[in-house]
């Protein structure tokens, strides 16, 4: 439980049609210094196995610009409260 008034942090998971697109964006983001982590997409986002890129909420706008510039195909961005995304909702 979060204490009342504490700000909830969100994680953003960028979802892809296949891992090739995911790895491509991973490389592009790293090249411009946007921190991202390869992760299985959380349950709340999709039920398929595969990769997603975990990006902090405040970096998602710059990440979007990279996505547009490079033409990487994505399947969406899931915004998930941090607690739930790294604890599996337990």
């Amino acid at each position, binding site marked *: 439980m979060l204490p009342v008034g504490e700000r909830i942090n969100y994680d953003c998971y960028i*979802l*892809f*049609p*296949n*891992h090739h697109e995911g*790895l491509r964006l*991973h490389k592009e983001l*790293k090249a411009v210094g946007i921190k991202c*982590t*390869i*992760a*299985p*997409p*959380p*349950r709340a986002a*999709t*039920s*398929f*196995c*595969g*990769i*997603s890129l*975990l990006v902090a909420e405040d970096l998602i706008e710059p990440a979007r610009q990279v996505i547009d510039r490079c033409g990487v195909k994505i*399947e969406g961005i899931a915004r998930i409260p941090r607690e739930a*995304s*790294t*604890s*599996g*909702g*337990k």
Partner: protein
Amino acid sequence: MADYRKMWTDLGMDLEKHDLLCEALPGAFGEVFLSQENRPEGMDYFNFVVAEIHGVRPAELVEHKKKGGKVFGTFCVYVPDEVIIAAGAIATGLCGGSQFWVPDGERVLPANTCPLIKASVGARLGRTCPFFRLADVYIGETTCDGKKKAWEILQQEVPVHVMDLPQMKRERDIAAWAGEVRLLMNRVEEVTGNRVTPETLAESIKQINHKRKALARLYNARKSSPVPISGRDALLVSQIAFYDDPARFSAQVNALCDELDERISKGEGVFPSDAPRIMVTGTPMAIPNWKLHHIIETCGAPVVVEETCTGVRYFENFVDESKVDLDGQVQALAERYMRINCACFTPNTGRIDDILRLVKEYKADGVIDCSLQFCTLYSTESHLVQQALKKAGIPVMHLETDYSEQDTGQIRTRVQAFLEMLRK
């Protein structure tokens, strides 16, 4: 997301059940790995392998098989991958580390069987792991009683070649193991239709030694204080070693190590340098068994080394590369593998020597000796392990656990008490 359903269907998997497994992975992975602060960026590759564990690598094996290649599944670090690779085949680890597979194993095995065996048999019978479906032949060994009997059950499903592992380490036993390596070579040649030549074997010996060197480099980095990588991350790398393409894996481990070297030179770590350093010894931790490491590290202490088969037993000692004929190479393989110290040997004093040496090398403050439930070999050997550590003045704690979450709270309490004692 990537849809591997067609591949899984073609492999005869139970998709509905498999979906449940896929659903559980992200939560578990997030909790254990993504919740860590300041993970090395080089871990991204290993995150990728886990996220795609039933996708990318199985698809590579499918491609290999389409071209007429064969896949051999192994369950023990005594089985020499070199021989399999030298015949142009792929070797893949098949050990089950998830509670998910246990009930399917219990359908045919006594409940008081070790979870590693139950999960491995269950992964095959429940049709929920592509690797267990892809292997053309399983390579078993006569290590523990539970496994010996499990081969007979698995044999009804898939051809199993059993290697007769000696249980002592006299000259004649090493010679006997060399004979078994030869028999494996014959079987692999027969299944693949390819000959193993001194040239192909020399090549695969080099390749696997290269992988061992990369892992040795990773473990070497863990000797630093503060430790530049968590035990959980290092364990994950070790677990992936059993599945991944050896050359790609070694390159990625080396890239990770470059980053760790940089951290070491800057004095950067993932735990404070005064946190108690823990060594784990005991039974293997097959993927995705991260339970003990997660408990220890979330109690504030890094695991700095594992004296297990998903740790140093996997990569220590190299195969002599100087031999140029098959007889010499087989002997060199037998000698290297017989230097692994598993509790199925008697006596097994080499393991105690290793534990005492590793405590020094990795500057461990305490040892957690952990056996999987119902593993008679490691539980019994624990008496001598604890005795030797106590005699050397090294704090030790023994635990027995399985893959379930039932005892997590209880283990956490015991680990906390142990760490409290170390901090005093």
